[in-house]
């Protein structure tokens, strides 16, 4: 008898517990509830928005809750939220997703008032409205291990007005390799973003749409062959591209002369490189001076969450010059609006270098993120990166250069055509 009562009591208790847990799950359209801002921040970027949210609360009394999710899972999270009708109010998304592209607020007037860079202002072709604002500017660039270069006595350009070709860069970095005993001359993130920049520097236009087909020009072929040579002859650590090794870790080891990465590393290097001096140098050109720049992520506001006005107000506040300047200084990033005077507490010369390189870059350098955004508006999304995937196969000797180029264009067509 006794145990039966005990069992019954347990069942009731568990039931009550479950009921109480569901009770605290819902309730998003509540007036006093904070604005929810989903993003994937590094220590700096996420921290930057958290500080802005605190500041906004002080000034207006409106609470903004920062929801930090892992970078790799941001897209999944937003898609699932959309399916569950639980989208946040604001998100810093990698791209506009076909699944929730119809639930976006119109940010056209904010873009205009804030002077968002024209190259990064993308209208939805369907209704000519701007629905996503670039959170900040990211750009590809070259870092060197200053100590190694100085030790080997090899000179390098220090100012954006100076330049060097890839041939010159490779020759000099090889001198550093032998002169200072560095293990490698160069390391480069295994990323399509960095690879595109590399192609642009060889005069390529990247993968371009030609009617129904996609093509890759001869300059790209030259660049990829050049890349394979660097990867094969011990100049770059092979493990990074073919085995997924972390390029930034290899550079931080102090054993690599140069690192082809981007502006977002500056904040990390400030904190996590302590035993050698590093510097930003102009990216080599062969012969085109180019980088690959674009939006770090896209700030979007979601409509129909019962807080359209409050959301627009916050985004508008975020892009006011003094607030946006403060954000860039805290997060250590480049502004995506023109006419700002950002004074960085450290490594201002690095940021100046990036700004100069962006200014000197051809139009193609700006298209990656804006193209993707446009495709997102049109309901297409490139969930794979054929340029990177096929290049890896090429580097590991699985296919020839011509097969690689065919595979890249074919896979792009399959995803976007």
């Amino acid at each position: 008898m006794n145990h039966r009562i005990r069992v019954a009591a347990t069942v009731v208790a568990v039931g009550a517990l479950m009921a109480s847990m569901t009770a605290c799950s819902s309730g998003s359209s509540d007036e006093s509830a904070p604005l929810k801002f989903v993003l994937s921040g590094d220590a700096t970027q996420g921290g930057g928005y958290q500080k802005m949210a605190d500041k906004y609360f002080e000034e207006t009394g409106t609470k903004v809750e920062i929801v930090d999710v892992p970078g790799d899972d941001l897209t999944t999270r937003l898609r699932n939220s959309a399916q569950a009708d639980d989208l946040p109010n604001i998100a810093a998304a990698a791209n506009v997703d076909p699944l929730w592209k119809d639930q976006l607020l119109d940010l056209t007037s904010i873009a205009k008032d804030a002077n968002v860079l024209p190259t990064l202002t993308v209208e939805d072709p369907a209704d000519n409205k701007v629905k996503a604002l670039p959170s900040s500017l990211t750009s590809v660039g070259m870092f060197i291990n200053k100590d190694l270069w100085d030790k080997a006595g090899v000179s390098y350009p220090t100012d954006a007005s100076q330049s060097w070709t890839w041939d010159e860069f490779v020759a000099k970095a090889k001198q550093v390799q032998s002169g200072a005993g560095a293990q490698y001359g160069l390391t480069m993130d295994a990323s399509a973003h960095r690879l595109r920049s590399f192609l642009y520097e060889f005069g390529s236009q990247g993968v371009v749409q030609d009617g129904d087909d996609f093509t890759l020009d001869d300059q790209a072929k030259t660049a990829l062959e050049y890349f394979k040579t660097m990867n094969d002859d011990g100049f770059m650590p092979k493990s990074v591209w073919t085995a997924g090794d972390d390029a930034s870790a290899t550079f931080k080891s102090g054993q690599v002369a140069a690192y082809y990465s981007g502006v977002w590393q500056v904040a990390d290097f400030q904190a996590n490189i302590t035993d050698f001096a590093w510097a930003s140098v102009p990216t080599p050109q062969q012969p085109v001076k180019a980088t690959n720049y674009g939006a770090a992520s896209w700030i979007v506001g979601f409509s129909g969450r019962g807080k359209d006005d409050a959301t627009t107000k916050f985004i508008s506040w975020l892009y006011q010059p003094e607030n946006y300047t403060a954000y860039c200084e805290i997060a250590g990033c480049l502004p995506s609006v023109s006419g700002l005077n950002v004074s960085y507490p450290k490594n201002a010369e690095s940021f100046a270098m990036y700004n100069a390189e962006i200014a000197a870059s051809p139009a193609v350098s700006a298209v990656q993120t804006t193209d993707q955004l446009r495709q997102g508006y049109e309901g297409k999304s490139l969930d794979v990166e054929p340029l990177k995937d096929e290049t890896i196969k090429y580097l590991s000797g699985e296919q020839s250069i011509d097969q690689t180029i065919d595979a890249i264009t074919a896979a792009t067509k399959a995803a976007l055509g």
Partner: protein
Amino acid sequence: MATETMSSSMGARIRRSSRPVTRKKSGEIRRSILPTTMLWVLAVLMAFPLLWFLLSSFKGGGELFTYPLSFLPREWTIDGYARAWERIDFVRYFGNTIVVATITTALTVFFCATAGYALAKYRAPWLSVLALCILSMTMLPGEVILNPTFSVVRDLGFYNSLIGVILPSILTPTGVFMFRQFFITVPDELLDAARMDGAKELSIFFRIMLPLARPIMLTLAIISFQWRWNDYIFPLIILSDPKNFTLQIALRTLIGSENIDWAILLAASVISMIPLVLLYLVFQKYITSSDINTGLRD
């Protein structure tokens, strides 16, 4: 059982009859040198990465990737721990994870025991079909049924609540199967005897069968707790509010889109391991035996 007793009594007889004790001991030592050394080598191999991980959490961010790598931190610092503690609301996330892990484990053990018992001891055609269905679930990886499960949880209104994480993980086919296999070994005569003594079906289950199945219960409880503690993908898609995050999700948020603050991540991972280590210390005996069942999965 019978053979065991036989062989042990034979062993005793042999021991009594021949060789002096000392010689036998030295032989035993000689014989055990090789396996013991091998075990030590294995233990060191296993412990090395873990130790490296622990020691690295006391290194500063600038020291993690320096060449040559050093095993011991050149400069001991708890800066990573301080920042991790500041950045992550450990109390909340530990709380959430413990709620999820304990409730799921308790329910898992209970329901798997009842299901396993029914499948082992009651005869009905539809029961064997059901058993087959449950068993075939072990062949599906959890990821395959992720989307349908998500839809069900969402339509039940459990999206973004801990119960949404708990509910789908309660019935694990592995658990049911473990109990079924165990209850089959319990002789039916025991049940018949209890029935003749006038015991009801429920009291047979609670008073006789459950106590008999205690080792299985503990094994499943330990495994299930570990599974739920380390669960990642399902909580990730079900929980959207950081207040409801489990520890693993919170830890993953430390991995940024372009770079990772390793110092914080290392420290936070060490902190997240502490409860499981404590659990291990308490239930050491049972965990060792539950690990014999390796290869099990939820």
